[in-house]
């Protein structure tokens, strides 16, 4: 089966600019997650969707980050305005059933200069 697709793979922006990331999960996976992974750290959950509804966004910095999942399939994560500390890899994951594990995309590496 096709994996989780993410784009772009890399992005370099200046601070205060905006950026958007796109994710296409595995077909049929109802649950979609966005994680942030700072260099040397484990992934940190930003937001979780079940179909097109938000289940948990308690760790999403809502003053600058937003995410949506239209029609319960693709999802976009946006940062506006970006700060230097947002430099990280943004990972999208999806799951059908937690007992089968989560499938991650390759991520988008964001550098804010």
């Amino acid at each position, binding site marked *: 089966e096709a994996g*989780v697709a993410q784009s772009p793979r890399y992005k370099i922006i200046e601070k205060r600019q905006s950026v958007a990331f796109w994710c296409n999960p595995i077909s049929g996976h109802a*649950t979609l*997650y966005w*994680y942030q992974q700072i260099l*040397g*750290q*484990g*992934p*940190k*959950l930003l937001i*979780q969707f*079940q179909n097109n509804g938000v*289940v*948990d966004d308690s760790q999403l910095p809502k003053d600058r980050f937003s995410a949506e999942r239209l029609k319960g399939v693709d999802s976009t994560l946006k940062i506006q305005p970006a700060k230097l500390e947002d430099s990280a890899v943004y*990972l999208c*994951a999806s*799951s059908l059933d*937690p*007992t*089968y*594990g*989560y*499938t*991650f*995309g*390759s*991520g988008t*590496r964001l550098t804010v200069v």
Partner: protein
Amino acid sequence: SQKIEQNSEALNIQEGKTATLTCNYTNYSPAYLQWYRQDPGRGPVFLLLIRENEKEKRKERLKVTFDTTLKQSLFHITASQPADSATYLCALDDWEGAGSYQLTFGKGTKLSVIP
């Protein structure tokens, strides 16, 4: 929320030996504990899941144990190979209610298998 400790940032072992990685957690026992492998520039890849009522799970050269009394999981790779070199992440499934699970990750242990 859970705090997860993978108490070795890096582990170097000789090819053919058994690598043992440790994962400790601080709060309640999770429904599931998972192990992932992450290569540079790639997303984590699911390896094994063990439930709270299971003591041990095996898959080929991999073995995971789960001790809810010690609040610890051990991850073993037997007959290690250079191709096993990667960062290994421990993750706990936290039940959030309403059918919702979330993964909380440790920082990972970078394993290097030396030929």
